[in-house]
């Protein structure tokens, strides 16, 4: 689909951490927080939100994509403060926050910490909760084929996102992001055991979106978010797995636009 809204890559200095921010569109600011993968690009999904009339802010987390190294950021807690600082740098008092997977965990932590800064909250296949009977599968131990099978329902979509013959720089880039991911999520794996008991603090209207074929993060995680966040509701998207915004950007964007405009 043709993208009709321009975007720019903006470089920010957030307390000494160099941040690459993709920004496009105009309207209500929407902060998109990426997961362990998917940094370093302005995605078709971002374009769809921008076209729908939003000011889309898609930063790369420190240690990911085109942003600089993590430096003092060693855990999710530190990353939350980094994003509070980033909002200050941008002069934004309140934003809609959309977080996917690892970024969903981050979005929930942000809304717990500073509920007044989050106008509306969208959690896409978010990790973050410590559910003993249905833990998130171990991405760190998966080989590339296993990872693709866990994240995507349609392997052809994954194939279109990765080079057929990755070179050294590409592989080292992936390794760098995996190291950053591990710093945030190695153990406890992909969760903050305290988060669930703090979700009551969230005041933003909340939409939880899950790909129906997500076997990496079982949907009970989505259901638990809905149960613990006042007024939250769950929407599922058929035929997609852990990354609905990649596998079915149009359906995901349509759900979000409806929710954010309501």
């Amino acid at each position, binding site marked *: 689909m043709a993208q009709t809204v321009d975007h720019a890559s903006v470089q920010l200095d957030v307390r000494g951490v160099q941040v690459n921010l993709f920004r496009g569109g105009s309207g209500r600011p929407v902060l998109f927080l990426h997961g362990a993968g998917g940094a370093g690009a302005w995605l078709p999904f971002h374009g769809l939100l921008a076209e729908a009339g939003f000011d889309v802010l898609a930063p790369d987390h420190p240690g990911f994509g085109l942003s600089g190294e993590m430096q003092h950021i060693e855990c999710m807690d530190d990353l939350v403060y980094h994003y509070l600082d980033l909002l200050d740098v941008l002069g934004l008092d309140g934003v809609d926050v959309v977080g996917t997977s690892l970024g969903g965990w981050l979005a929930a932590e942000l809304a717990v910490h500073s509920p007044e800064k989050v106008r509306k909250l969208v959690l896409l296949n978010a990790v973050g909760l410590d559910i003993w009977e249905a833990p998130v599968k171990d991405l760190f*131990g998966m*080989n590339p084929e296993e990872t693709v099978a866990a994240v995507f329902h349609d392997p052809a979509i994954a194939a279109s996102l990765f080079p057929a013959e990755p070179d*050294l720089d590409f592989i*080292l880039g992936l390794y760098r992001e995996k190291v950053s*991911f*591990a*710093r945030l999520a*190695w153990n406890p794996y992909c969760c903050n055991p305290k988060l669930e008991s703090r979700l009551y603090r969230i005041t933003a209207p909340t939409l939880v979106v899950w790909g129906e074929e997500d076997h990496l993060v079982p949907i009970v995680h989505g259901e638990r978010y809905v149960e613990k966040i006042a007024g939250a509701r769950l929407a599922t998207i058929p035929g997609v797995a852990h990354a609905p915004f990649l596998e079915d950007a149009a359906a995901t964007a349509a759900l979000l636009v409806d929710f954010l405009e309501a």
Partner: protein
Amino acid sequence: MDVFLFHLMPYPETPENFDEYQTSWLTYPRKHFDPRKGQQLYKEYLDQLVYAEELGFDGVSVNEHHQTTYGMMPCPDVMAALIVRETKRMKIAIIGNALPLRDHPLRVAEEIAVLDCVSGGRIISGFVRGIGVEYFTFGSDPTRSRERFNEAHDLIIKAWTAEEPFEWISKNYRFRYVNVWPRCIQEPHPPIWVPGFGSPETFDWVAKHRYTFMSVYAPTALQKSWLDGVRAAANRYGYEADPSQLGALFPIHVADTDAEAHAAAEKHIHWLFNKGLKHKLEYLYPPGYMSMGGMKAAMLSGLKPFHEYSYKELVEQGFIIAGSPESVREQLLESQGTLGFGTLATLLQFGDMPNDRARASMELFAAEVMPALKAASPVAPVAA
């Protein structure tokens, strides 16, 4: 040159469907361990290590690996304890204790101190990070591996040398009352050995502390680059590395003739590299275990996964040494001339090698190879 008998204590029996497993580590099911078989193997292996004293080795080495058929020594200090009381003269090198995997490094300080005290000062204390897969075993954070290693080391050394109780505060460890009993016999503390696999950070750290670096399983050319890395790092710290600071480890097999040695070695090396070292790469290299520089160096090293090497390649590239006593002697002296090591660790039982063959190889090595090695004064390698 100091010559050590190194052991891995493999558990060689594997099921018929072994090939269906991605790895012989971490997730390889424990149902494949028969404890009665294990009891017999422990006896044979421990007897081999104790026999090394009678054969004239300078010492033996035990090591730490977890959840694998590769080796049955998850608790190296226990293994050393089993040897201490059956020997009188030789050194016992524990290579090593995986410091970052322990939540309480002071337990290492205590265990080594007990062993050094009981043995009359015969312990060499290896410090390792543990291999990558072991960060999955213990859920330990690989991105903090090196800082935990460095902090645990500093704590242990201080615990061994301080005269008075002290409080320890570092990023990863906090102990309000450090006062390790007993004390080591060796002053100021047992020698420290550190095996490495090409991380530039390790070369620098070993050189800084003037410890002994041990290379493991690699082609001669790569081993040379590692030992050169230690020598260069020593130069940066203003001194020349002593050959005793440079160690090399080889699987070695000695038999009456080259043909017999190679025939046997090929079979048992096949087990070591294709079964014992059957790794899943994602487990072997968890994120952050290697720095970006270390990862890049590993990717550019040209090393293949171990199971992709043929026996011929392993021999030609210098991973392993096999032959008649005369040819093993020549190969080791040549290798010593190239690499400049002053400490040699010999892996004389490997893979599924049976007890009688391992002992025969040990005897031939001790009688006909070792004397020439000990007589040879270590020489620094000729600059390339």
